[in-house]
């Protein structure tokens, strides 16, 4: 019987592919757009490297103070120069025209003060174009790879979408459109690496953000405990703002002057927390405490006297810096799990060892110890549920704290409250689950033995059990269940499905003596199917033990049973 196997590379229809391609194209084009902007900015800085160095004189210069709390300082400058016998004037400081922190701008104002003779760099093809600072911003380079990821996902996705179609068409065109069996080892490796990359991003982001938000400030607080205290005078103090779609965050900027070992310095750091965060009132209080002209003390780094702070105490908002730690933990656990999963994965070599017609090598774990191990223990479940509950509620609590407790806009508060209700309910449910799992720790631990521990189809099996502390149980049920379990992909989504095909009731008793300990025998039907464990399709046999209790929660354990192929051939 020569047959034609159905092609299994079902890639969806052409309209779906066009839709997916358009979506991916938007992805790729946005990436290209942002990469283009960054590349142009970098190119401008690099191109100025070939501009002609020319003497010039600063004619005017002033520090532009921020007009709004969200803006930064900048230095407005004008200069004159002579190029090829002609006089020119320009106002461009550098290609990076964005504002900066006060100390940087102050340094610029000192380096390019009015009346100073300095060097400027003139564009030979357009001599009216010049800059004072032509530093290439190499810091920009790594960031150019971020939009590149979008470009790669976009074009890579389009390529893969249409490449699949090509393969499918080729298969249909061929006389026998049979699928080539995939290489399970290769696909497992690819899946494992994919998971590692996915969780690696979590780990990197968590470690990176955790370092800057928590470790670095805490380390500097610890280091600064030995810094000398020197008098300083407050020049200005203000709150800075940063607004985006998630709301407004606030920072503190205090500028002060101090002297250390006879040299005058300017400081602009209040403490070691950089950036902005929620909590308007706390920042406003700090700003109120430092009014211009006020005399106070600051702490100076003796190794670098330009580095100073007004406060070296631990602010409570530093604890927020531990949140990225949860991301790092998820990443670490995910990578470890992916690698362990890969190592443990079995290769199904259904070979028949010489001299034996019945052994089933390779596919199953060792045979011998006939005490069954539960699929999961209450302690493992407790750790799992605690982790999920902490992770979920940690994230939800940030939004609750920021938008509901600290937020000022009442309309927004109402909207956010409505939006957050389901998330908060899930969080509460998870807390309930943690308590439920915690109570299960106090349940009795059954000991279940199977002989043989890996029974064959059609074989007689002896089951024995013992439940220490059984007195709280009013009923005991033990069943053996066989089920088909599949993972499937449908369009862009996927899922799992499960169907029971066998259910053997072994024990169902309310007799306290039988609940305490007992044994039973049963037969696994010969006309059934042995355990089978492929990537997406599985035949799973489980022994389920349930003990009803007067008080919740009930006793519930599951044991995986490896059912072997039968021996009647």
């Amino acid at each position, binding site marked *: 019987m*020569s047959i034609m196997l159905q092609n299994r590379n079902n890639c969806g229809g052409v309209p779906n592919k066009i839709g997916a391609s358009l979506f991916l194209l938007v992805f790729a084009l946005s990436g290209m757009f942002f990469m283009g902007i960054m590349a142009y900015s970098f190119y401008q800085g690099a191109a100025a490297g070939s501009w002609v160095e020319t003497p010039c004189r600063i004619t005017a210069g002033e520090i532009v103070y921020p007009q709004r709390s969200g803006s930064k300082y900048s230095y407005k400058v004008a200069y004159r120069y002579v190029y090829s016998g002609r006089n020119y004037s320009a106002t461009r400081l550098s290609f990076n025209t964005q504002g900066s922190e006060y100390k940087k701008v102050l340094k610029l104002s000192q380096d390019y003060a009015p009346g100073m003779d300095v060097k400027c760099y003139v564009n030979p093809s357009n001599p009216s174009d010049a800059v004072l600072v032509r530093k290439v911003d190499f810091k920009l380079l790594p960031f150019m790879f971020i939009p590149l990821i979008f470009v790669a996902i976009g074009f890579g996705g389009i390529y893969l979408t249409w490449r699949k179609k090509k393969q499918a068409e080729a298969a249909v065109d061929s006389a026998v459109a049979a699928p080539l069996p995939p290489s399970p080892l290769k696909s497992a490796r690819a899946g494992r690496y994919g998971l590692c990359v996915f969780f690696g991003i979590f780990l990197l982001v968590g470690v990176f953000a955790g370092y800057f938000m928590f470790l670095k400030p805490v380390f500097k607080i610890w280091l600064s405990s030995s810094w000398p205290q020197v008098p300083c005078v407050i020049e200005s103090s203000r709150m800075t703002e940063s607004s985006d779609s998630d709301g407004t965050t606030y920072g503190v900027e205090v500028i002060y002057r101090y002297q250390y070992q006879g040299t005058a310095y300017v400081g602009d750091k209040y403490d070691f927390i950089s950036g902005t965060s929620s909590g308007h009132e706390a920042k406003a209080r700090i700003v109120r405490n430092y009014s211009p002209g006020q005399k106070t003390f600051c702490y100076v780094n003796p190794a670098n006297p330009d580095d100073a702070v007004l406060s070296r105490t631990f602010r409570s908002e530093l604890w927020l810096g531990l949140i990225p730690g949860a991301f790092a933990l998820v990443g670490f656990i995910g990578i470890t799990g992916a690698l362990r999963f890969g190592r443990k994965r079995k290769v*199904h070599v259904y070979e028949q060892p010489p001299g034996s017609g019945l052994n089933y090598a390779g596919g199953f774990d060792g045979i011998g110890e006939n005490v069954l191990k539960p699929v999961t223990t209450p302690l493992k479940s407790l750790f799992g549920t605690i982790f999920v509950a902490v992770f979920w509620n940690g994230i939800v609590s940030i939004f609750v704290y920021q938008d509901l407790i600290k937020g000022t806009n009442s309309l927004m508060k109402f909207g956010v409250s409505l939006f957050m209700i389901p998330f908060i309910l899930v969080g509460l449910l998870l807390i309930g689950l943690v308590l439920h799992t915690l109570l299960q720790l106090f349940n009795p631990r059954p000991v279940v033995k199977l002989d043989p521990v890996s029974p064959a189809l059609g074989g007689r099996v002896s089951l024995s059990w013992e439940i220490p502390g059984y007195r709280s149980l009013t009923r005991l049920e033990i069943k053996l269940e066989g089920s088909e379990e*599949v993972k499937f992909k449908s369009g862009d989504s996927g899922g799992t499905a499960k169907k029971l095909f066998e259910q053997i009731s072994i024990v169902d008793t309310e007799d306290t003596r039988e609940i305490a300990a007992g044994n039973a025998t049963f037969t696994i039907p010969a006309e059934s199917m042995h355990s089978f464990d*492929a990537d*997406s399709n599985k035949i799973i046999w489980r022994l389920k033990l349930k003990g009803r209790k007067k008080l919740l929660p009930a006793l519930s354990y599951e044991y995986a049973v490896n059912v072997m192929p039968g021996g009647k051939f």
Partner: protein
Amino acid sequence: MNILSIKIKDDKTKFLPGEDIQCEVIWDLQKLPKTITVNLFWFTEGQGNPDSEIVRSIELDASGLSGRQWFRLALPVAPYSFTGSLISLSWAVEVVAPPAAERGIYKFSMSPLDNPAVLKAIEAPLPGVLKFLSRFKGIKQMPGGQ
């Protein structure tokens, strides 16, 4: 046009686990093949993503553009063929002869029973909450699933 086919002696479609199968490969190709390989593999069909695995491969002596060759393959002891509500598992031998795109395939079943096992979905008990709700809403047993 390339001709590449594989058939089993007596057109047998049912085998016992561990049994030997006798196959014949016939080829008539336009280009000299690099190799002629026969793969014995199982594969799944059904609701899940397809799985398959080659359990044995042999290379035939392909010295000409055309020819035929008999050979034997020993089947492993598992997995058995079966038909379930979600999964069906079958066995096949295929022959490939690159660079020819064609391949010949012969499908069969392997089971210790007269016919592959048929796994019928059975009623699964409802989870606790649904069982409670079923008293009021008339929710019935879930067919096989949970």
